[in-house]
């Protein structure tokens, strides 16, 4: 241990009692900030730590304290899923191809440590699982037909008061009764059942699977056709609408706000929705809905290698695969690069991906379901 540059080291004052208290403090207050892989490893430190880390109460604390996306699941058409970690020593899972589930699955959406996957055969059931603890739960069959590639968003926000993980799964699916319309069916874990919303979306938009995010009770998706842009469903008000804006890119959440991140030309741009009520403001309202949060030039970065010029049209598979919290993941051809918004550093992930890859952020949480 460092003996310090200070002449009067506090250690000199330490007696056994205070030192013991420190160990207790660390065990109770520092451990919940660690990702699941580190915690599984540290169960091997001593019996006390194993006991502490194994309790449901600890899992509850950890899921409340540890929120960082430090890994990603990716999956290409009908291949098994794979896992990429930003820090392999501290963030990881025992079974990246999710073989602990009863059947091969397609990952549909993720939220704060939980994954929602769908089976491929028969009734194609939905499963909610925690890939770190290998716990899983099969959801009851929905009422409506969600189609072959449903636009799903899992909503799990850990809360201090909810000891048992409460989550919702919302699916936007093409209406069977009306043309050019979308309906919404929502599963609530606290009720254990599905409900179809009375609210419907008319307007010829197509809700893009794997694009949806949840912010403050509102779920946003990218939409194709009918002018592109962003559509949303407000869970509290039970209202769906198009967000009038010319934004397109990867949806995400930063500092509690909706963001759109795109790679265009030779730069990464992040725009944040600072005023979500501009849709309901008067015609003459001059309030700007979107603020530019970040603009990073990519052209002077030799470590990125030769860059394709990002001129994908708004409707193609974008170059930005993930952009939430402090992390942006974007592709250059088949290579994956990261940008950390806190440290302003670029990185490269040592794996290659297919063009049609579905990409999901993952929090290494111990949450129990």
């Amino acid at each position, binding site marked *: *241990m*460092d*003996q*310090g540059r*200070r002449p*009067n080291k*506090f*250690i000199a*004052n330490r007696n056994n009692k*205070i*030192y013991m*208290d*420190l*160990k207790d*403090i*660390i065990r109770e*207050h*520092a*451990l919940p*900030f*660690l*990702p699941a*892989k*580190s915690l*599984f*490893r*540290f*169960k*091997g*430190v*001593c*019996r006390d*730590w194993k006991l502490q880390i194994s309790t449901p109460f600890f899992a509850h604390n950890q899921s409340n304290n540890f929120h960082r996306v430090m890994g990603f699941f990716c999956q290409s058409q009908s291949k098994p899923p*794979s*896992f*990429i*970690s930003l*820090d*392999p*020593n*501290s963030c*990881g*899972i*025992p079974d*990246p191809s999710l073989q602990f589930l009863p059947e091969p699955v397609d990952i549909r959406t993720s939220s704060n440590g939980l994954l929602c996957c769908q089976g491929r055969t028969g009734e194609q059931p939905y499963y909610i699982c925690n890939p770190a603890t290998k716990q899983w739960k099969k959801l009851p069959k929905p009422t409506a037909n969600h189609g072959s590639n449903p636009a799903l968003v899992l909503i799990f926000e850990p809360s201090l008061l909810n000891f048992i993980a409460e989550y919702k799964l919302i699916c936007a699916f093409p209406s069977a009764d009306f043309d050019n319309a979308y309906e919404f069916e929502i599963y609530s874990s606290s009720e254990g059942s599905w409900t179809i919303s009375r609210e419907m979306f008319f307007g010829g938009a197509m809700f893009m699977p794997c694009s949806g995010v949840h912010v403050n009770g509102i779920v946003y998706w990218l939409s194709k056709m009918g002018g592109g842009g962003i559509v949303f469903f407000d869970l509290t008000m039970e209202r769906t609408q198009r967000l009038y804006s010319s934004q397109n890119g990867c949806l995400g959440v930063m500092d509690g706000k909706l963001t759109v991140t795109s790679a265009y030309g030779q730069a990464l741009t992040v725009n944040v929705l600072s005023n979500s009520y501009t849709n309901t403001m008067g015609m003459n309202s001059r309030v700007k809905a979107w603020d530019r949060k970040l603009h990073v030039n990519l052209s002077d970065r030799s470590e990125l290698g030769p860059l394709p010029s990002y001129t994908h049209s708004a409707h193609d598979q974008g170059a930005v695969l993930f952009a939430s919290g402090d992390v942006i993941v974007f592709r250059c051809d088949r290579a994956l690069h990261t940008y950390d918004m*806190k440290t302003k550093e670029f990185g490269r992930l040592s*794996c290659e991906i297919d063009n049609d890859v579905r990409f999901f952020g993952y929090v290494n949480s111990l949450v129990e379901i």
Partner: protein
Amino acid sequence: MSNTSENPKPSSSSAKMTLKTSDNELFEVEEAVAMKFCTVKQYFEDEKDSDVAARGSTTVIPLPNVHSAVLATLISYGKKLPQSNAVADNHEEEETKKKERKKYEQGLLKNLMPGELLDLISAANYLDFKEGLEFFNQALADHIQNKSVEYVRKFFGIKNDYEPHEEEKYREEYAWAFEGVDED
């Protein structure tokens, strides 16, 4: 920073309190900051109740478990926190302050040795300084998160109380947690 006060000061909007550390150094701190140390807050409130005449005079609060270097850091961190009695800022001011605080926090952590983190956590716990406890525990977690079991035992002085065969069995069963590189 040492400052002994001879004359009682009239209480003002920025009332100060004096804290005395284990190495007999005195720190004059604004009441708003000192009140974030709940142990101090409790002591101060007890003092106020017990002696009406003492109100308005400078109280010296003894902190026998906290060293001056540690207290200096905790006070410095406490000052940067949003003050509960501050006037509400507009959105821009709030964003600027947030950025400043993040920059300060990064600078603070860069210059801290891991051992000092333990002292800070111990003191923050004694002072019942919730924000400090959370911040320094998070920093400690960041420091140990990708370390080995052996490092952690050594760092905290924890004795391994597993039997060798128990430990081996655990490492086999959870081999993935001990691996540095993910196998896909």
